[in-house]
């Protein structure tokens, strides 16, 4: 749409969730006037949600950071870029000399572009000299990445969201896409209206449960038993694809042995799901000619989240429902670039495309390209960084586009870690809970102000283009990172994000054919061959594992890290609201706040009656590690014994309640099972919860 109301219209990719809607951003007078969906967007096909379309006012918020800030006493003062740069170089050089490079760590951001994340990785690895590097996918979909690599070989969805349009049935587990990923939610809903037989599995009765044929409501933390039960029924009732198992997989026999213990009655004991419902669900999935499985953080953010994803893969492998259109495994990745930030190697143990830092050949290829020696030792993950900061091994951090003091678990511990650091650089678009502890704050840019690429949940590289300039003297993240690296003595030598992508492609066989020019309007789904051929469907002929065979995982159900007891008799589940996004840094600075201004705790009518709580009452929620106050809302969309709230509001600070239990393989925190005590607060509640003392 070109019309007289706008000065400029730019096609770009949405910076909210991992769906990757293509947008037309319309600017007037250097500000975003409107955003409309691109008709040819592969994932959104002319649609988008209230976040992508309307929640752009944050970009012109008066609270945007417009100049570098340097700590002075208990506050901050404005500083020039030169002063901020000198300060950073001096401090990092001093700490590196005194304690070695491994006393420094960096966090890249899953909201930033691939090029930003790669630049951050190069800054930490080459300019600093350590592998202490991670990104926020650690706390959301790292279990998905781990499990898909184990079971199939590659860390990404096996198909595209359009697979829902070609599927006869689908299982949706631990996800609430009509709120968390609205455009995919709308796609699934439309598919059900045309006859898709949808099975929803979630402790809450999510909106899509009303459109499905069956809803299973397991006790939180028992997903493994649910998947093993479904697998048991498929095998027992002869619904397996024998030829697929024989020709394309390995390890089925070990799984068969394990399955004996997961008959529907036994699974009902563990999960609370009626045996007959479990059997029906297994038949709906296995008897469909084509079926998809989709999951979200309700699967991954558990003590055994990575194992559950492998158990999901088992179900697809034994029924041969992978590797073709209409039969795909589609994890709903959280942030816009949570796929890409990890693909780009912003992880403590891998370079681009998940190649290990101790792989000599790979490490040498990067040493040749960057002209510096590189560490072969794995670095710290995010939780390890905080532990190391508290015990004094880590002295400095560079946190880029991430509000760990609001979004990471066990907030009191995170704050203790940030306070223990000698030097903290934050690079962000707003002051956040985390920047309170910074020594230098660098003013960065929002997605509407930068160029580069995001990789969506379908493994699709898509172009990001600036429609407006960063405010004041704020700079794009790419400029900041390349400038700081140069100041630290390591010139990355790129004139533009496109040149950075050329280097990524040259050093990464899986992205060999990727370039900004080739990505164009339609995007490229990796792996991308040198001639530019991309891969909408993975594993059509073989899996990307030695021998080409998919691997069954024989993993038993194990109890979650926390459970209800006399003192904490209710299980808290956390999640998202349609109107808000993650820490709310962006959406809380838009009129979305008018649509959803204050969070609440969802509680079942039976529990509410027992506890003398009614809708609108202030309630105290206490866990083993912290306490918050919020407002109750009574609803039968949640089961008795469970409560639900989101984590978008710093006033609520839900993550004070979350302990240190985490996924056994990836240390992704167990946000989804927290035993709590809920009770009414008789007097006026304090609005700002105090941090626990350490």
């Amino acid at each position, binding site marked *: 749409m070109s019309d007289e109301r706008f000065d400029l219209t730019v096609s770009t990719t949405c910076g909210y969730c991992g769906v990757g809607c293509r947008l037309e951003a319309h600017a007037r007078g250097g500000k975003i006037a409107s955003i409309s969906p691109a008709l040819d967007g592969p994932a959104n096909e002319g*649609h988008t949600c209230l976040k992508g379309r309307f929640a752009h006012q944050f970009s012109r918020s008066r609270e945007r950071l417009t100049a570098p800030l340097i700590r002075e006493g208990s506050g901050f003062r404005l500083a020039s870029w030169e002063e901020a740069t000198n300060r950073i170089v001096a401090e990092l050089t001093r700490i590196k000399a005194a304690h070695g490079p491994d006393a420094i760590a960096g966090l890249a951001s899953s909201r930033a572009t691939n090029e930003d994340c790669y630049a951050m990785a190069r800054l930490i690895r080459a300019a600093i000299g350590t592998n202490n590097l991670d990104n926020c996918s650690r706390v959301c979909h790292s279990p998905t990445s781990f499990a898909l690599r184990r079971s199939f070989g590659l860390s990404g969805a096996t198909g595209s969201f359009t697979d829902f349009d070609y599927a006869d049935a689908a299982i949706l587990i631990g996800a609430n896409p009509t709120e968390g990923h609205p455009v995919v939610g709308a796609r699934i809903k439309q598919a059900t209206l045309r006859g898709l037989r949808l099975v929803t599995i979630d402790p809450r009765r999510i909106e899509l449960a009303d459109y499905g044929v069956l809803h299973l409501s397991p006790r939180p933390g028992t997903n493994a038993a649910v998947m093993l039960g479904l697998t048991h029924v498929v095998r027992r009732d002869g619904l397996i694809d024998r030829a697929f198992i024989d020709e394309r997989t390995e390890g089925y026999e070990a799984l068969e042995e394990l399955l004996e213990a997961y008959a529907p009655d036994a699974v009902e004991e563990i999960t609370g799901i009626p045996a007959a419902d479990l059997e029906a669900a297994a038949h709906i999935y296995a008897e469909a000619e084509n079926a998809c499985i989709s999951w979200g953080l309700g699967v991954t953010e558990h003590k055994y989240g990575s194992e559950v994803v492998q158990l999901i893969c088992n179900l697809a492998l034994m029924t041969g429902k992978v590797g073709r259109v209409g039969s795909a495994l589609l994890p709903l990745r959280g942030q816009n670039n949570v796929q890409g930030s990890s693909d780009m190697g912003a992880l403590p143990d891998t370079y681009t495309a998940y190649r290990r830092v101790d792989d000599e050949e790979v490490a040498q290829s990067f040493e040749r390209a960057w002209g510096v020696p590189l560490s072969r030792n794995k670095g710290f993950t995010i939780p390890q960084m905080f532990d190391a900061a508290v015990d004094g091994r880590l002295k400095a951090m560079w946190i880029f586009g991430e509000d760990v003091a609001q979004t990471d678990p066990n907030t009191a511990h995170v704050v203790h870690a940030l306070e223990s650091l000698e030097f903290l650089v934050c690079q962000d678009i707003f002051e956040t809970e985390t920047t309170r502890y910074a020594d230098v704050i660098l003013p960065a840019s929002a997605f509407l102000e930068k160029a580069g690429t995001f990789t969506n949940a379908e493994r699709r590289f898509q172009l990001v283009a600036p429609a407006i300039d960063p405010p004041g003297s704020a700079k794009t993240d790419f400029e900041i990172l390349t400038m700081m690296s140069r100041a630290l003595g390591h010139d990355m030598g790129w004139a533009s994000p496109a040149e950075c992508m050329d280097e990524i492609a040259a050093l990464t066989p899986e992205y060999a054919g990727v370039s900004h020019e080739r990505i164009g309007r339609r995007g490229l789904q990796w792996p991308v061959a040198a001639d530019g051929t991309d891969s909408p469907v993975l594993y059509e002929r073989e899996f990307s594992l030695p021998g080409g065979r998919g691997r069954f995982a024989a993993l038993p159900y194990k109890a979650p890290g926390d459970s209800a007891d006399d003192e904490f008799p209710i299980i808290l589940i956390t999640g998202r609201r349609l109107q808000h996004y993650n820490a709310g840094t962006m959406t809380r600075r838009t009129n979305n706040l008018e*649509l959803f201004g204050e969070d609440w705790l969802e509680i079942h009518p039976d529990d509410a009656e027992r506890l003398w709580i009614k809708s609108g009452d202030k309630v105290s929620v206490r866990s083993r590690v912290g306490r918050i106050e919020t407002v109750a809302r009574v609803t039968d969309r949640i089961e008795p014994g469970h409560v639900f709230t989101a984590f978008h509001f710093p006033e609520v600070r839900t993550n004070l309640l979350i302990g240190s239990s985490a996924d056994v393989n990836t240390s992704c925190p167990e946000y989804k099972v927290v035993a709590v005590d809920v009770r009414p607060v008789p007097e006026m509640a304090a609005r700002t919860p105090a941090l626990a003392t350490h």
Partner: protein
Amino acid sequence: MKVTIDGHDVEVEAGATVLEAVRAAGGWVPTLCFDERQAPFGACRVCLVGAAGARGPIPACTTPCRDGLEIDTADERARRVAKAVVELVLSELPVPPAPHTELATVARSLGVEDVRWPGATHRVDHDERHPYLAFQHELCISCGRCVRACDEVQGAFALTATGRGFTANVTAGLDAGFRDSTCVSCGACADTCPTDAITEITLL
């Protein structure tokens, strides 16, 4: 199969509509109630074209092609009817549609300048209770695109056609407004509206 558009042959898949064939041939017919994200509706009669052997003009958006079909997009009678339809639509509006709207674009393309039928126009009725979405009910032409976007694209089922004849219009919920209906604020209605009867507050 093969169809002929304004003398040019074009190959189309079975089930393709005449409008799809015209677009495949690089041609253009004006449309008002059509949106490629929605199932064809056939309500506005602005996409009329001539078809060899037909008794009169046919709507391009809902007519399936048959092999050997010959279409004339410049058919004089079809253009005359379409122009009259747009003129009648405009005659009900108290103000002309804004230049960027599809209705204004279609009117320009058909050469509709003055409206020959003065008389009653829709009563001005604005609803700006939602932070992003506004109704300007007087601009509604009952094309049904917003209702279909809400049903077929988003699946919120918040919008409903209301009233009959001259008072036909659109409403969210049972006159509840966007906020208190099942609306999820996706904005698909504003995106498809060809007249700004539903539009973004920030662009008013």
